[in-house]
Each structure stands twice: as structure tokens, then as C-alpha cells.
């Protein structure tokens, strides 16, 4: 729900406190043929293939978002330092409040995770982008690595203003009737309910080792899911698959449920319980 300006506005009206755009690249990409998304018993599996109209065309969408009330975070993907900084600069010009570097898409060949699993490359990409733009830079990390902490530290070294963890988890569903992988791209990214314990683990591990803010993602659907991420050290959370499970009202509902939990537990501000589970 972040492809177009209109869609993003609808998400904002639905109560989101900030929005992240679809990941944008230099050239238009159609993404993979369908099936690109299926529901599994315990989550959602997708291999969209980073469809996007290309950064030049995306200016049209960004222009319409300049007057919205919440921060708009421009997500970008590339295969090189230069590519990332070019795109980040564009996003800054277009009025993005921050930029999120997609170093973690699990199914796009040559992008995302394939770039984001190499600490040196991550550090250099973040550094180059930081030298190019003034807006905050977030690195979105993958759990599909031997050590997410190593990658998180590389991002911090590079000067990132924060990290986002996690993107979807590399996974596969084979249909036993067709006897083939169900997605056109075969391998996809697993999000939603089933991956929450993995996302929370990643945030917890990162929070122990890095000091820049962490944004949690993966299976947030209810207020208590968000609370779990915050207790693990996250400063905020992103919601993806939750939109499917609870509809667009998921944003308002989650906020309400967090507030209720805070009341029950005697907290007035998120900072009061952020990272409490780390002690």
C-alpha cells in the first residue's frame, strides 16, 4: 500500500504516524509476473520483484505528498554506492523527510539482500549517502545473514541515523498439487505473524550492540506486538502484512492498543519502556 501518492495518503488518513514509500530504483521495473503474493498459514509470502516506475517518474507521486502532516520516508534500492546516493539525493529533492536504504529485499537478484549482506559494502553505501544528503538515513536490514549485528554495526559506522529490522525472510512454498513453487519467482520473502519471533530477536540483538535508533518490523499486527518490539529496544515499528490481517484500520487500532497497554502498565511515554527487556 505504498505504490502511489493516493495510496500513501489513504494510509496516512488511516492513522499511520509516518509512511515509507515502495522501494524506488533508477529505471522503471515491472517486477515479476504473478503470482507475486500468496497467503500462507502463518504469514504472507511475496516476490514482487521491486516494481516501481523509476525515480524520475516517482517525482509526480512525491510532489503530492509535500503537504501531508506526517514524515514521508523515501525507500530506495540500488546495487552500488553511487546508485544509492543518486536516488537518495532525488528523494531529498522531491521533499522526502528521510531516506530508507533497502539493503534487504530477499528476492530481487542483484539488489537488496545481495548487497546488504556484505558489511563493507553496507558501510560504504551508508557513508556515501550520508555525504550526499542532509535528511536522516536509515538502513533496512535483513535477517538472512549470519550476523545481523555485524551489518547493523557497519551501518552505524557508515553514519546511519538508524536501522530498520527486519525485511521479509527468504522462504519458499511449493504447491503439492502443481508440484512447483507457487510464486513465479519461486523464492520469496516471508512476512507477517510467523516471522515476529525472528524480527524481535534481531531488534534485541541489535539493541545490545548499537546505539542508533532501531525501527522494528515483522509481524506487527496488534498493540502488544509493537510493545514487544519496543521492549526489545525499538524506537518505532513499521507495519506491512498487518494491513492484510486487520485492514487499513490496523494503524489506529495498534496505536490505541499500545496506549491501553501503557495505561495498564503505568507508562506515560514510549521512552519509559523502550529496551526494558534488555536489562
Amino acid at each position, binding site marked *: 500500500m505504498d505504490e*502511489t501518492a493516493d495510496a500513501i495518503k489513504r494510509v496516512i488518513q488511516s492513522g499511520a504516524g509516518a509512511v515509507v514509500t515502495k522501494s524506488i530504483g533508477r529505471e522503471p521495473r515491472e517486477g515479476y509476473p504473478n*503470482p507475486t*503474493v*500468496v497467503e500462507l498459514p502463518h504469514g504472507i509470502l511475496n516476490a514482487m520483484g521491486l516494481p516501481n516506475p523509476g525515480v524520475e*517518474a516517482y517525482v509526480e507521486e512525491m510532489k503530492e505528498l509535500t503537504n501531508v502532516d506526517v514524515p514521508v520516508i523515501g525507500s530506495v534500492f540500488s546495487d552500488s554506492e553511487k546508485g544509492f546516493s543518486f536516488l537518495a539525493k532525488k528523494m531529498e529533492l522531491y521533499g522526502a523527510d528521510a531516506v530508507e536504504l533497502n539493503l534487504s529485499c530477499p528476492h530481487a537478484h542483484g539488489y537488496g539482500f545481495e548487497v546488504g549482506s556484505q558489511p563493507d559494502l553496507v558501510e560504504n553505501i551508508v557513508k556515501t549517502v550520508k555525504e550526499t544528503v542532509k535528511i536522516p538515513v536509515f538502513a533496512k536490514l535483513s535477517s538472512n545473514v549470519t550476523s545481523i549485528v555485524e551489518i547493523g554495526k557497519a551501518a552505524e559506522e557508515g553514519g546511519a541515523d538508524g536501522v530498520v529490522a527486519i525485511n521479509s525472510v527468504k522462504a519458499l512454498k511449493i504447491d503439492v498439487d502443481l508440484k512447483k513453487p507457487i510464486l513465479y519467482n519461486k523464492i520469496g520473502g516471508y512476512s507477517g505473524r510467523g516471522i515476529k519471533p525472528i524480527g524481535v530477536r534481531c531488534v534485541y540483538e541489535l539493541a545490545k550492540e548499537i546505539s542508533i535508533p532501531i525501527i522494528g518490523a515483522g509481524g506487527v499486527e496488534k498493540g502488544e506486538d509493537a510493545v514487544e518490539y519496543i521492549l526489545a529496544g525499538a524506537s518505532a515499528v513499521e507495519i506491512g502484512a498487518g494491513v492484510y490481517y486487520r485492514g487499513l484500520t490496523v494503524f489506529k487500532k495498534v496505536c490505541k492498543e499500545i496506549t491501553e497497554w501503557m495505561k495498564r502498565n503505568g507508562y506515560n511515554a514510549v521512552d519509559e519502556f523502550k529496551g526494558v527487556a534488555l536489562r
Partner: protein
Amino acid sequence: MMYPRVVRIHKVVEETKDVKTVFFPFDERVEPGQFFMVLIPDVDEIPMSVSYLLDESKGFTFKRVGDATNKLFEKKAGDLIGVRGPLGNGFNIHGEKILFVAGGTGVASVAPAVEKALSQNRETVVALGAKNREELFFVERLKERGAEVHVATDDGSIGYHGLVSDLMLELVEGDSFDLVVTCGPEQMMKKVVEVCSKKGLDVQASLERHIKCGMGVCGQCCVCGGLRVCVDGPVFDGETLSKCRDFGLFKRDASGKKVYIH
């Protein structure tokens, strides 16, 4: 669950040279105007409105236009496809007298709505448009059920010579309808909605946009300020469409880029 159900095609009917109907076993309730994502293994998964609503099976009717529909055109009874659905909202059939306006393959999704209206004893007038006589289908089916069917062809090879939207103008001049239901090329539907707005007629149109997830998460199919064709639609009412700046103006291709409708 939003996962393709693999089914064995049990009947294929040729409607015209380029249009076929595929029947598959499916015993759950489906509403006219809803659609399925139809998986053609190794090729694509594409949206198809339900065109037949039987107790034990459902059908969809499609025109071959590209890769996926051409491959589907080769399928025979016994072949496996996947169906994911029913998806979307469907038509909201109400009122004593209803006018259905369909162009091209639009009649595929309108036909079960007509049948529903007839089974509920509503007065039912249908206007079908096609390029020529050879491309028309479902005329007999609807007549036999008891609908008043009018036909328009671009070349005049049968029925009214001209656009179905012009035929519709004539029909609404001489009569009053509680509801107009339309499906077809977007320029045509745009005209139908405009006519209805002017005349103060209730109208519902079924939109087509590029569908990827079909479950409201990817944002690919958004129209009219963030409405998702796959879950909020595909059927929208005249009020929504009148305020919708992209209706009849542009779609988005698979990359999300605007493609203007000519």
C-alpha cells in the same frame, strides 16, 4: 486463505473466435461482480470476473489478448489451473428496474448480475456492445432467462449501429431505472457514469486495474485516492467515481507508471 486452490478444469466452451468460458469445480458462494485470480502455471496469475455461478462449479469468460490469456485459451478439460477468490465486493443489485450496460468482455461479469436480478423478479434491461456480430456473446443466454436485450455494434452488423453508450442514452431517455450497472472499456463506463450523474440515476461500474496481490497489501491497483480495486472494488458507485480524478483518465502499468487511457 489467499492461496490458489488448484482445480481441474471440467468444461471449456468457445463463445467466439477469441473468447472462451472455463468451468471449474467450486462450491462456495460467489457474488456477481466478484473475481478470481486465475493461475496459469509457469505463466501468470490474472484477474477474471466470475461469469457463471452454479452450485457446484463456477466459470469465467475471457478474451485472448496476451501471454496468459493465450495460454489459457489452449487449456482443455482435465488441465490444472489455480483459482484464488472470490475477491472484491461484487455488485449491489437493488431496485425494481435495472439497466445493464456492457461492452466487449464486460458482459462476462454483468451476465451473472443480470441472472441474479431476474431470479429476484426485477425488471431487467440489458444493452450489449461489441465491435461486430462475431464478437457478441451471451445474448441468447440472457434472452432465454427473460431479460430484454438490446445490442449495439460498431459496424452495425447487428442491432444498433454505434456505441453502446449512445444506445444507452436512448434507453434512459424513454424509461426510468432504479439502477444502472456497467462493465466494459473505461471510456465507455465513464460516459455511462456521466449520463447517470446528469440524470440522477444510481450507477455501479466495475473497474479494471493491474492486480498483483489481490489482497490489499501491495497498493498496485489503487484508484480514486487510494481505493483498492482488489478489495474496495472492483465495483464502485457513481458518487465515488464522480469524485475520482483517474477514472477514465489513466491506469497504472505493472511498474506503477501512469498510462493514459485513450
